[in-house]
């Protein structure tokens, strides 16, 4: 197992390297000079040159990359142009809020997805199966930012039950686990949960149907095992894949939360990214994307290792 983890770490390193190159180049992809957002319009050529040297933009790209990577590896993501605070600090605070929202959403999506998936897999072509597959098509087809708006229209604007935006009553940027804050997370979490719910339901349905059609299930029934006993076997067989998908979905939600966070003004990384884009705050843009992508890479690795650990059928070669 240790060797397997080591081997996966070796294969993930070039990917992580590639991700850092992409994030680095993002800033240079931007039209115009990366400094144009900081410099006043009437800056003299001397000032521009001075600033370029100060930020290291006068050096060749590979050298700039090496310097940037060296700083990143030491936890220094640069300084936000808009706020003047370190990017690492800004992203660190936002990522906690995003992680809370994405985790709650994944949990909701997983619970309902697994439920519908099991029901549909057990009772194929029944009405419940139709409902479950309709729900999963709905989940992957609905523009989630619109779904968020519809939920706000129904539950905030019309019924007035839940707050439409923000993470807490005091307008603070931090979510805390108490009743008042709980009301704020309900709508964004449900909106976000719809996508993984559909995907998990679809996968679990296929898994369960496949497991039930295998010979060992028949053998279990033939030896007189109760239906509950058979069910436990099915769960054990479906669990590694279902959990792996849940893990990956958490990563997708965290990285893809920008639209939902914008709709609900949720103070997470998506909201931060939105601000960074429109204030042309390139260090902040670069930093948040790097953190999110690296988180996704790490999550993929963890999921992969966990799946191998849980499922003895996967070879660890």
């Amino acid at each position: 197992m240790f060797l397997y983890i080591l081997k996966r770490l070796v294969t993930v390193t070039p990917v992580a390297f590639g991700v850092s190159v992409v994030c680095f180049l993002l800033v240079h992809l931007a039209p115009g000079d990366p400094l144009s957002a900081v410099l006043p319009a009437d800056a003299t050529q001397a000032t521009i040159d001075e600033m370029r040297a100060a930020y290291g933009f006068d050096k060749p790209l590979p050298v700039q990359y090496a310097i940037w990577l060296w700083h990143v590896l030491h936890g220094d993501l640069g300084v936000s142009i808009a706020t003047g605070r370190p990017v690492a600090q800004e992203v660190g605070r936002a990522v906690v809020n995003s992680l809370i929202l994405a985790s709650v959403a994944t949990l909701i999506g997983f619970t309902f997805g697994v439920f519908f998936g099991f029901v549909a897999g057990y009772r194929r072509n029944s009405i419940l199966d139709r409902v479950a597959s309709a729900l999963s098509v709905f989940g992957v087809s609905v523009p989630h930012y619109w779904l968020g708006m519809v939920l706000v229209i129904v539950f905030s604007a019309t019924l007035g039950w839940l707050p439409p935006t923000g993470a807490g009553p005091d307008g603070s940027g931090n979510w805390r686990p108490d009743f008042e804050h709980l009301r704020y997370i309900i709508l964004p979490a449900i909106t976000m949960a719809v996508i993984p719910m559909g995907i998990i339901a679809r996968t679990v349905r296929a898994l369960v149907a496949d497991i039930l059609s295998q010979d060992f299930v028949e053998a279990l029934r033939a030896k007189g095992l109760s239906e509950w006993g058979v069910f436990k076997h099915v769960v054990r067989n479906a669990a590694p894949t279902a959990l792996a998908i849940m893990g990956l979905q958490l990563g997708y939600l965290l990285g893809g939360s920008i639209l939902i966070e914008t709709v609900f003004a949720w103070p997470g990384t998506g909201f931060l990214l939105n601000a960074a884009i429109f204030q042309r705050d390139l260090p902040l843009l670069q930093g948040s994307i790097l953190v999110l992508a690296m988180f996704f890479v790490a999550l993929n690795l963890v999921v992969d290792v966990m799946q191998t650990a849980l499922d003895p059928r996967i070879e660890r070669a």
Partner: protein
Amino acid sequence: MTAPLTAASVALDGNLAAPPDAPEAFVASRGFWGHVGHRLVRDPVAMTAGAVILIVVAIAVLSPWITPMDPYKGSMLRRLKPVGDATYWLGSDELGRDMISRLMLGSRLSLFMGVTPVLIAFVIGSSIGILAGYVGGWTNTILMRTIDVFFAFPSVLLAIALSGALGAGIFNSIVSLTCVFVPQIARVAESVTTGIRKRDYIDAAKLSGASALTIMRVQVLGNVVGPIFVYSTSLISVSMILASGLSFLGLGVRPPEPEWGLMLNTLRTAIYVNPVVAALPGLAIFIVSISFNLFSDGLRNAMEIRQ
């Protein structure tokens, strides 16, 4: 968004040239595409979805001539009329412009920005994937490891990161969305191509003296294009949602041009005044997106590609 899962699982199910229920000998065969068409026609869900897509495309093409009112002309006195208004059938927006006219004209940009990236990515991604799969060796390693890097970004994040860096605009949105889909299509194309490159007919073509390029164009392309195409159609729905999402964020189409995502964004302020009208553009995105998904599912079933 499900790319890594489906990418690995979309695989050739046996020989495409001979579907399991091929008719008896002596009966003229319909051919592979004939069978697909025949099965598709008998699938009511896919047919309905296809019909919806055709209607929307027809509206998009004809919209400059058939909109009941001028989609750009507003009236400050007639802002946010409700659905069912005598003049404005689907109400009016926050600047008093006719909703139904704007929704009709908006279908042009929304469809264009949703479908174009997938089309371009289909061409580029298939080329990369077929090349990597057929040539194999180092070419494959280098191409596919580069593609792995792009898989390390969730697709929404990649699209927004690229658009954010490039700046707002229709062209930039299409470029960033294309970059999102090329790796996904290339991965499917590679796995399908790797699956067939050891087949006898490839060897036969080689022995008959065909060049690598000819084999890739004739033997390989003919046998892999179906699964890649079906996979690509399943991406259109995601692409539509993402493209409108970019406009929703202010990274795509600029006002006053009507586009569903952008309309949804500008109408957000109106949810307390006229919630139904505010939700209409999103409903349009949803209907088109679900139609593409259902049609793509039907196509996959008809072609008997395992999911």
